[in-house]
């Protein structure tokens, strides 16, 4: 974060606008669905209503994120030259958003349309105030999906291949992937995998089911493996 602050003192911090906009969009989508997703019961006090606390949560999310978004340092992006120079484009764009907001209000009523209007405004503002640093930051966020994928693949394969075999495979493979190619580190990762399985499954007996592959083991070994590995 500090590199952007020192290099561009007047630039918004990388990713902050994008995060605030995405979070606000999610909050507004939740707010738009509050009527459908929660109930309002007749003859019940306000604080006992099933809708009360979700409304507090979602309402707070919208309000505070909108304020956070508003107070973030912002700088309009440099638009393409034809957009900057064409008056008709700016007019047409403003009119389009105003028309969208108005028609939504007429169709749904002002109260119900408010989240959607907010949504449109957020998308518009996010587009106007995000820069190349935000896009670069967004790519970094996306790159984490690889590690999440490794984790989920590991989780999906444990019930099939077994906790011990899968952990013994997973640890050195991921160690290899992150760049440790020497034998020592790979053996350390295997040792760590073995240690984790022995401590948690064999000693502490945490609830991890036996694998499908264990069914092919001889009956004497099968129950031992299901219980301990």
């Amino acid at each position, binding site marked *: 974060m500090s590199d952007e602050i020192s290099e561009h003192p007047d630039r918004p911090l990388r990713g902050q606008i994008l*995060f605030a906009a995405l979070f606000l969009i999610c909050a507004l989508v939740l707010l738009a669905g509050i009527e459908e997703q929660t109930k309002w019961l007749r003859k019940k006090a306000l604080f006992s209503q099933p809708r009360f606390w979700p409304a507090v949560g979602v309402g707070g999310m919208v309000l505070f994120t909108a304020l956070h978004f508003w107070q973030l340092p912002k700088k309009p992006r440099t638009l393409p030259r034809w957009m900057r120079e064409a008056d008709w484009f700016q007019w047409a764009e403003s009119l389009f958003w105003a028309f969208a907001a108005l028609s939504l209000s007429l169709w749904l009523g002002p109260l119900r349309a408010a989240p959607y209007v907010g949504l449109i405004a957020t998308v518009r503002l996010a587009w106007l105030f995000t820069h190349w640093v935000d896009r670069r930051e967004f790519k970094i966020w996306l790159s984490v999906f690889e590690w999440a994928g490794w*984790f989920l693949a590991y989780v999906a394969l444990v019930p099939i291949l077994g906790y011990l075999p899968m952990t013994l495979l997973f640890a050195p493979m991921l160690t290899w992937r992150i760049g440790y190619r020497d034998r020592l580190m790979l053996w350390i990762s295997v040792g760590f995998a073995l240690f984790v399985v022995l401590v948690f499954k064999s000693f502490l007996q945490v609830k991890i089911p036996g694998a499908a592959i264990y069914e092919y083991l001889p009956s004497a070994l099968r129950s031992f493996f299901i219980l301990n590995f």
Partner: protein
Amino acid sequence: MDLIYAFLEQIGASSSYLARWDVALALFVGSVGGVLIGAIPGVGPAVAIAILLPATFSMDPIVGLTVLLGIYGSSMYGGSIPAILINTPGTAVNALTTYDGYPMTTRGEARRALSLAYSSSFFGGVFSVICLIFFAPVLAKIAPMFGSREIFLAALLGLILVVTAHHKHTLIAAAMACFGIWLNTIGLHTASFSKRYTYDQSWLSGGVNLIVVVLGLFALSQAFTLLQGDDEKVRLTKIKGSFFQGFRELARHPRIAGVSASLGVLMGMIPGVGEFTAQFMSYTYAQKSSKRPEDFGHGSSEGLIAAETANNAVPGAAMIPLLALGIPGEALTAMMLSVFYVHNVIPGPQLFQNDMDFVVALYLALLVLNVLVVMFLLIATNQLIKVVKIPNRFLGVCILILSFVGVYSLRNSFTDCILAAAFGIFGFVMKRLQLPVVPIVLGMVLGGIMEVKLRSAMARVKTPLDFIDRPIAAILFVMIVLVLILHFRRVWLDHSKRKANEWSTSHASTSFPAILSRRRNFILTERGKKVRGKRKTFSRRSTDKR
């Protein structure tokens, strides 16, 4: 005399909880494990507790809580080692230790700094436990005065304090707390048997599990951060000699140690405040009252004592709101609360009235733990500092493997793992943007408490003033109002200061690039429009081809 006799009798009764081999083993594992985890920068007690939580569900409550309490209480001892030796705090709360600890190392006093950190931490830890043991009877008398509305107000105060403690990120912290409140509402509303935000998905009807969220936000996000980052090269200093000299030096600063420990206990008791405020208050006090304030930040022994004593006095005190009212003040105690619920031990006034032995046993465990940790550190520091060398990215692999145990063993659910991975990615983004995640966890826990307590409290309230007609409720309400006033005052002062700075530094010479940029924009937009307008009128004539 009767009081002392009753006190000793209480200690005797509670000791029976600890005189078991499994509790002794839990104490040992918790203390050694906590020190190790604290000494590795990038892991921290939150990650370790999140991973171990489901494993402790199958244990006896006292055993499970002792392990978690051990990690919580001893990680700060371990965290001071890298803070002093390599200027990297092992846990977030050791950040202040680097101010004076590392300069001492650079001038060849690493052993003195470490021994001083150990002795100060030991004093802080023991002081807080002794205070708590003496406070316990008073707490037992006060706790029953807390009804539904008092607990609601205390939870609200905790949430507000957590939000306002995130200075400069208050708005997003408030948004995150609300996100936590909303997360807690997902699923079946038991009072009305209606579904909330389930989108007709069966996996959402049971709600979002707190432990899945905690594991995602703390453990998986940390694993992703480490895997995404680079390894750091660490150069360690060799330390020779014993570590006992710190106790002698600490004895020469009884005032600073006493005040810092007291501040730690006080701040720890208030939900949502915690180590950081305690540390900074005691550090500021030590600096202001010192004969050599200029040494602070350059290797002052008084600064190191203040920081370490205050942060280690907090864990014991943080157990007060948790045990007496069932209100956690921070993420770690919020995680511990789930252990209580799993074992059907409901923290709150009843626990103090009916199961005082259990409460005192927890305090005694904390006391024994401090002794164990300091003994372990005095013997094994030289071997322990080698863990700092574990490569960061490999640590990421280890945390990912351990996180699987935490999430999957909970319900053997693949959906939980997907949810935890999603929260892991969310936590990773938050970490990169340096935004707070703790309010989400506290929002979830305190939101649930507030919902139940407000519903039951409002049944007997006719006018709004009835809500605060009892003395404790009135005090809590005044505290909430005071906290809010003080917060808005600080925001206003910061705003005025920023504006004043902007005006005082706006010289023409310093903003020269900005002037150029504005000039360029003006030429491209406003003036450009005029010029193009003029050219348009001329060009119309010129287009006539003959």
